[in-house]
């Protein structure tokens, strides 16, 4: 029962507990108007008159913000806890000189433990990537050289004609009927 004064709510409660004591007879006890209407406490001090403020709904906005907060914090808090624990219990690395005859692993060049872990678990070493790139460059270079060489060879074979390319298949010479041209007067 929103908007009731303290007095009214007290009367309603008392009426609920013992309906017959609120001054009603048993006949009209089931009517909904259990508290008496003539007691309207307008001048009750404190927060001023309670108003029923009519404003457009903010349910959807508040629901959106609530859900946003929930879903962001769902993974945000575990991640924050994880990163804090890593920073406290597994500290950052310290810079040191490379000892003699020691080749550090590729993840030993990073400072933060999570970066080191990512580099160790997921990434190839930069040396390997470099070599892979060099291999690709080498392959492409060889392909380019092959193509240029092929064009050069084509040119020469076409010109000179004594190579295996650009040979036109001719028929077997035994099949040629030379009787037509065998005598000069034919």
């Amino acid at each position, binding site marked *: 029962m929103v908007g009731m004064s303290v007095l009214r709510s007290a009367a309603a409660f008392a009426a609920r507990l013992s309906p017959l004591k609120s001054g009603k007879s048993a006949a009209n006890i089931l009517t909904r108007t259990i508290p008496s209407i003539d007691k309207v406490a307008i001048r009750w001090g404190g927060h001023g008159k309670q108003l029923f403020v009519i404003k457009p709904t903010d349910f959807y906005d508040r629901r959106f913000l609530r859900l946003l907060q929930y879903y962001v914090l769902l993974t945000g808090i575990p991640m924050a806890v994880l990163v804090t624990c890593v920073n406290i219990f597994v500290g950052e690395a310290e*810079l040191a000189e490379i000892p003699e005859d020691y080749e550090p692993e590729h993840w*030993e060049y990073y400072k933060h433990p999570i970066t080191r872990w990512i580099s160790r678990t997921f990434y190839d070493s930069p040396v390997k990537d470099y070599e892979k790139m060099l291999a690709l460059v080498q392959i492409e270079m060889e392909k380019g050289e092959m193509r240029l060489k092929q064009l050069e060879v084509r040119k020469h074979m076409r010109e000179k004609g004594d190579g295996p390319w650009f040979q036109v298949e001719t028929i077997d010479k035994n099949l040629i009927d030379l009787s037509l041209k065998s005598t000069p007067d034919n």
Partner: protein
Amino acid sequence: MPQDYEKDAYPEPPRQTPVVDKQTTLPNPALILTKLFYYSVDVPVTTFRGIVDSIQQDRKPVYYHQKFRRVPELTECQEGDYPCYYEAEMQWRRDHKVDQEIVKVVQERLRACQQREGSSYPENCAKALQLFTEVATNYQSRYGDLGAYGSARKCLMKQKTRMETQKA
């Protein structure tokens, strides 16, 4: 605790704190504030750092500074030797990064000097200023207007034009 900065690079002026000659019984507000700051901020932070250091004491990992071997430059590569071009390009990029960091460090030193000296920086910071102008002009002339897609080749061409204009 982590290492402090190099004291010679960022020299501090000599301290001029006067001898305390208190003639009043009034409390010194500066002293009160410093004590307040000390107890409310410095002590908790230092103790926290001490706790964390004691947890991490024995098992600290170590990281190294990677050293790259020098490879032939772009000028020493045969024509058409693309792997050599690639290695020279990578070396040039690493050198470019190093030069950028050098400029940043020199800039930082000049800034620190200016902050220390206040309004008398033109005469007191002359060395730092001269070093910075030299480094900045050199950087500009070498890597200056290469643009976002700068490469070793373009830098070499820029050097060529620079040498030509110098000769002419």
